[in-house]
């Protein structure tokens, strides 16, 4: 398959020698406006033909699965401090699966759109549609993965992307002669429900003694957690909590030294 071969990675600069295959490149998801999503496939280190295909999505929205998922979380490589090369991640998930990192939507990382306005009006809907188109066309490029068990995984705002893509696949499957063999999803620290996420977040801040009783009560009484957009008063309470009461911490890991 010429397209597949054109995507084969011979080796990345500063990469240690590995036995598994890698491919990366673009799949056009909308020919009309010229939107294309970038992917990086690191095949399983053992027996890739029988291992499942696992799609990994990072959230943001707007953040790259290559930057996070592939390069500092589940991928086979880590980037060294001088960015001169890579070293192996001994806990990589490609020990048991074929990992497909997808930069979605267009505008994230290397994924692009020739219609620049796309960067200003993309949302959950287009992301799910384009990601489904990506998967359908990617499987055409890599026919050995057709029928293979597929799992969707991700974290953070991909708590939206993953279920929405799963739903799009289920709908596609109900109308297709060649269904995608979607077996399951796994999401971490996932954005799930506006109201309960927000309520749980300020409760966590209070129960972990990051904010005062007063701020906690004001957040609960002032903010309407069901709304998309916070009111100005609510916004200023969040700012006060983060700027005045949190101190210089890494909110993504409250016990780790912050990266200044």
């Amino acid at each position, binding site marked *: 398959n010429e397209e597949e071969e054109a995507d084969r990675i011979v080796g990345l600069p500063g990469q240690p020698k590995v036995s598994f295959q890698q491919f990366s490149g673009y799949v056009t998801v909308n020919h009309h406006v010229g939107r294309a999503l970038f992917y*990086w496939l690191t095949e399983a280190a053992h027996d890739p033909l029988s291992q499942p295909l696992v799609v990994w999505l990072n959230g943001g929205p707007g953040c790259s699965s*290559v930057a*996070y998922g592939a390069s500092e979380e589940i991928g086979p490589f880590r980037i060294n401090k001088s960015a001169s090369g890579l070293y192996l991640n001994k806990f990589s998930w490609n020990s048991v*699966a074929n990992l497909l990192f997808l930069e979605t939507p267009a505008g994230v990382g290397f994924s692009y759109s020739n219609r620049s306005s796309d*960067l200003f009006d993309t949302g959950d809907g287009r992301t799910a549609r384009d990601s489904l188109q990506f998967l359908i066309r990617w499987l055409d490029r890599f026919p050995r993965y057709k029928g293979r068990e597929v799992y969707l995984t991700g974290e953070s705002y991909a708590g939206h992307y993953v279920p929405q893509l799963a739903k799009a696949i289920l709908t596609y499957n109900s109308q297709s002669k060649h269904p995608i063999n979607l077996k399951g999803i796994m999401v971490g620290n996932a954005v799930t429900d506006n109201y309960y996420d927000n309520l749980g977040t300020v*409760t966590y801040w209070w*129960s972990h003694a990051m904010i005062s009783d007063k701020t906690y009560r004001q957040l609960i009484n002032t903010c309407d957690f069901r709304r998309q957009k916070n009111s100005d008063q609510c916004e200023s309470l969040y700012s006060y909590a983060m700027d005045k009461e949190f101190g210089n911490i890494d909110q*993504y890991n409250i016990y780790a030294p912050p990266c200044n």
Partner: protein
Amino acid sequence: CTEKYAEVYYNRPDVQKALHANITRIPYKWTACSEVLNRNWNDTDISVLPIYRDMIAAGLRIWVFSGDVDSVVPVTATRYSLAQLKLATKIPWYPWYTKKQVGGWTEVYEGLTFATVRGAGHEVPLFKPREALQLFKSFIQGKPLPKS
């Protein structure tokens, strides 16, 4: 600070060539997160819990995990949200283990497995790689997390 290394590495022309990336010469640097997209996000579901109900009905395997020292989308947020699904418990709450250490806690519901990863931040595999790999292996095998 590891994402700073990515900002350097993936903007190297030789890396982009090896990745067959940036072939259209996008008019901006590669970056880990796009501020433009983030600030102009057009449509967002208020809740994806309805989709969870559809996926459970469709028989998909659903795992939700949470690093319990993240304060951005913390474990309390996930628990409040999942509680709305009102799922019956299949395997009651227990600590799961890797290398004789508690990797976190878990409860298996009808249709969904919830697991925490003890001491992990927002990017669980970054902070607790061994535990994250165990979580993934159990998920892929469709088996509950180890009890010892």
